[in-house]
């Protein structure tokens, strides 16, 4: 199947930051490393919806070991009264993870606030071990230290969309990662 070409996308997205090939190469490396580290172990891979969808699907298929898969969803902070208040899980785990190894997978870790909350929630399930894997690690605004066992790419301080990452729910389905200027988008 042909890839979606960039010319079919609106002009407000910037240059490609990571190509499909670069992404897939790194995901394959991560999958191989995780397969080696968890060989013979009972592993549950947990992602938080929905930005992680594409990365997790590729990462899982790059793993050469049998794993269980589950997802969490949380109500993220937002502009409405409903999204103020306190963070909460809107979907908890279906898998029982007590006594099993858990690998938590994120699309991007920025401030660390979301990841910190989810890691705390996962620890309450009493897994045998808990590690974190991020497709993108952007540390410029990191407020909470997160111990990352696996990182796809460390990225500098700019906004990116594609490969699951969105701007107001758009651009998740770009198969690569592009630089995006929210200021310009807001003006347009």
């Amino acid at each position, binding site marked *: 199947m042909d890839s979606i070409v960039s010319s079919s996308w609106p002009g407000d997205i910037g240059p490609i930051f990571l190509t499909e090939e670069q992404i897939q190469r790194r995901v394959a490396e991560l999958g191989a490393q995780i397969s080696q580290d968890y060989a013979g172990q009972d592993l549950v891979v947990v992602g938080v919806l929905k930005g992680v969808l594409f990365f997790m699907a590729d990462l899982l298929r790059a793993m050469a070991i049998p794993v269980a898969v589950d997802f969490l969803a949380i109500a*993220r*902070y*937002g*502009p409405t009264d409903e*999204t*103020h*208040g*306190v*963070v909460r899980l809107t979907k908890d785990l279906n898998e029982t993870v007590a006594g099993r190894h858990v690998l938590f997978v994120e699309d991007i870790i*920025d*401030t660390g*606030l*979301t990841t*910190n*909350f989810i890691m705390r929630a996962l620890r309450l399930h009493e897994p045998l071990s808990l590690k974190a894997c991020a497709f993108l690690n952007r540390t*410029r*605004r990191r*407020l*909470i*230290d997160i111990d990352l066992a696996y990182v796809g790419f460390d990225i500098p*301080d700019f*906004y990116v969309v594609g490969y699951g990452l969105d*701007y*107001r729910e758009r651009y998740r389905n770009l198969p690569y990662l592009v630089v995006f200027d*929210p*200021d310009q988008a*807001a003006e347009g």
Partner: protein
Amino acid sequence: MTEDGETQAEVAFAHPSEAAFARILDFYQVAWEYEPRTFELRWDDEGNVSEAFSPDFYLPEQDLYIELTTMEQRLITKKHRKLRRLRELYPEVNIKLLNRSDFKQMMFKYGLDEGDSLIGQ
């Protein structure tokens, strides 16, 4: 929420951007304190404090101070100088500066269009 149980609504913030930041910390259940400590930076010949700095936030669980500034980059030279001085005198203190761009990015990340109005033009 502060360690004294105060929520952001009960703290008198100097700037609305600080209240917005506190709301985000509250949402993610991260404990914070508002301007809990003043660091002495310079003294006159008689030993009186001539310059001091009070970072906006302290996150006790992270042992991290945060200074939030929404001033334009060209206007924050003085703040950078104070931070440098603080790091010289108190190397054990962890402090992070979140500038105007950082704040705007955070507002975008959390889907808030109020970033510009909180910053001021």
